[in-house]
């Protein structure tokens, strides 16, 4: 399956947005060559602000730019974009609903070599708790571009996660994209897997494997982590025999627990979560090694489906 870079898609989308709207400005904390915001720097140097290695200041400066009418996109590694600047996001940006777009790059375990200080398995979990924030976790490079176009047009703060590694492309430029909507990637009537980010590709692999055993699994791409819409979830659990969630994030406060809390009282279906169990990451030579170590690989999704269906 064709893989594409989400980071490159982010950088190219910034340039495209910059052409369309002179109010788009970009801030970076000495990681522009990694997040790929450097493409915007080359195209619009006067609207690119290198903030040095000072993420808290970058977050609040972005708020000031937004309050004075600009549309700032600030980016750095997800762990620094979120946790390092949590209170700045909360007070400078979210309370006044400032029109700041935050890019959490190298999210999850995708920066496999750098280890636990640079990996972020809880960034979306904590950012989701802040009122006014929209939180997005794109599945592939094509969806990154579609999301960027949408978030540049809506008013208010948005946090978008960008995976460091090239990922399979499941979405198409031709299909629509709306914040809050969930999109089926694979159809199946026995069970539904609500997957997000890199885990969509793992869920699709699991569905193919299970299909060989006669188990038909539907895979839903949940690329909007917040707002999470109950009606969308209810739509896809209807007629199924089990619910599985799959995410490359902490189980506590993750997608699985969010979905569970929304459907309490609505269903008695078996429910299994594939997520990271209260643990930091670690260094490894490959992304796949880490997904296996933290029990969020394709085989773990398969096991969860079998367990939920008692097969």
């Amino acid at each position, binding site marked *: 399956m064709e893989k594409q870079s989400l980071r490159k898609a982010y950088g190219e989308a910034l340039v495209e947005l910059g052409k369309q709207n002179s109010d788009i400005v970009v801030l970076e904390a000495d990681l522009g060559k990694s997040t790929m915001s450097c493409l915007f720097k080359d195209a619009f140097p006067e609207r690119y602000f290198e903030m040095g290695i000072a993420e808290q200041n970058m*977050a609040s400066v972005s708020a000031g730019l937004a*309050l*004075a009418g600009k549309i700032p996109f600030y980016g750095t590694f997800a762990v620094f974009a979120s946790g390092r600047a949590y209170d700045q996001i*909360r007070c400078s940006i979210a309370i006044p609903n400032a029109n700041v777009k935050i890019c959490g790059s190298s999210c999850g375990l995708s920066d496999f070599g750098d280890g636990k200080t640079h990996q972020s398995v809880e960034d979306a979990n904590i950012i989701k708790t802040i009122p006014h924030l929209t939180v997005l976790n794109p599945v592939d490079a094509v969806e990154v571009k579609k999301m960027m176009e949408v978030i540049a047009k809506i008013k208010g703060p948005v946090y978008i996660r960008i995976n460091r590694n090239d990922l399979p492309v499941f979405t198409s430029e031709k299909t629509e994209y709306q914040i809050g909507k969930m999109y089926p990637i694979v159809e199946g009537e026995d069970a539904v897997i609500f997957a997000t980010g890199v885990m969509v590709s793992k869920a699709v692999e699991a569905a193919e494997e299970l299909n060989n055993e006669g188990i038909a699994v539907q895979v839903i791409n949940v690329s909007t982590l917040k707002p999470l819409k109950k009606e969308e979830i209810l739509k896809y659990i209807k007629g199924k025999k089990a619910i599985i969630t799959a995410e490359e994030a902490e189980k506590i406060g993750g997608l699985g627990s969010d979905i569970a809390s929304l459907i309490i009282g609505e269903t008695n279906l078996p429910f299994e979560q594939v997520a990271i169990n209260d643990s930091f990451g670690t260094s490894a030579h490959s992304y796949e090694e880490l997904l296996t170590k933290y029990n969020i690989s394709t085989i773990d999704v398969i096991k969860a489906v079998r367990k939920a269906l008692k097969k």
Partner: protein
Amino acid sequence: MSADEKTKKLNEIALQLRYDIVEMIGVGNAGHLGGSSSLAETIAVLYFDKMNFNKDKLKDPNRDRLVLSKGHAALIQYAALCEAGCFPREELKKVKTLNGLLQGHPDLSIPGIEAVTGSLGQGLSISVGMALALRLDKSSARVYTIMGDGEQSEGQLWEAAMAAVNFKIDNLTAFIDFNKLQATGPTKDIFYIPDLDKKWDSFGWNVIKADGHNVDKIANAIEEAKYIKGKPSVIILDTVKGKYFSFAEANAAYHNGILTEETKNIALKDLDAVKAGA
């Protein structure tokens, strides 16, 4: 208006803002009397003399902005916005009440407030962002930021200080309300930060010192800062926390103290005495 008349007017306004602070705190409630009253003259000069501020044009892109980084002194800013006509006087007494307009710290829902502050150390960063935006728009508007001296221990404001110099921002004037007290005692005892002026100078800022209770000197410092090109200016205001309130002057207990019937009456008498002497 002659220079003398202007000085008189600004002093009268500063005094009125102090009356408003007392009215807002009322009896039996805690309020930031000390750090609000140390700023009365500066706030009066900014809103009623130096800033391009018009209550009917609060969204004008070319307005000057004031960001109160030491957001706990919101009462003095609310007093000025009320005197300027941004919201009805009735709101003053409803400050910090559930159905009131005026929040415990500055909030964007309040007409005339430009940023959410109160979590200390963030206002200068927000102001740097505003200054960059105004420069991109080729606006002649200026951004003013007021920080506390206790607030100087927040690391983020030094990040902002470096950023402002890095970007050669000269449409920003910062103030430090050097009132020498913070929430729990004298700043030099709680968290000693020697040579503030030298620190800001070594960070690349143009440093100006002014008597923070002298409206003419404050106004002159603001004018001086406007003519400094290629770098930002900071005005260190020598002030007295709780200025003109006999029981609160240089008394850390009134950082966020409660007024009783007795202290409220003393407060009003203190202000009456200033008025009579003026």
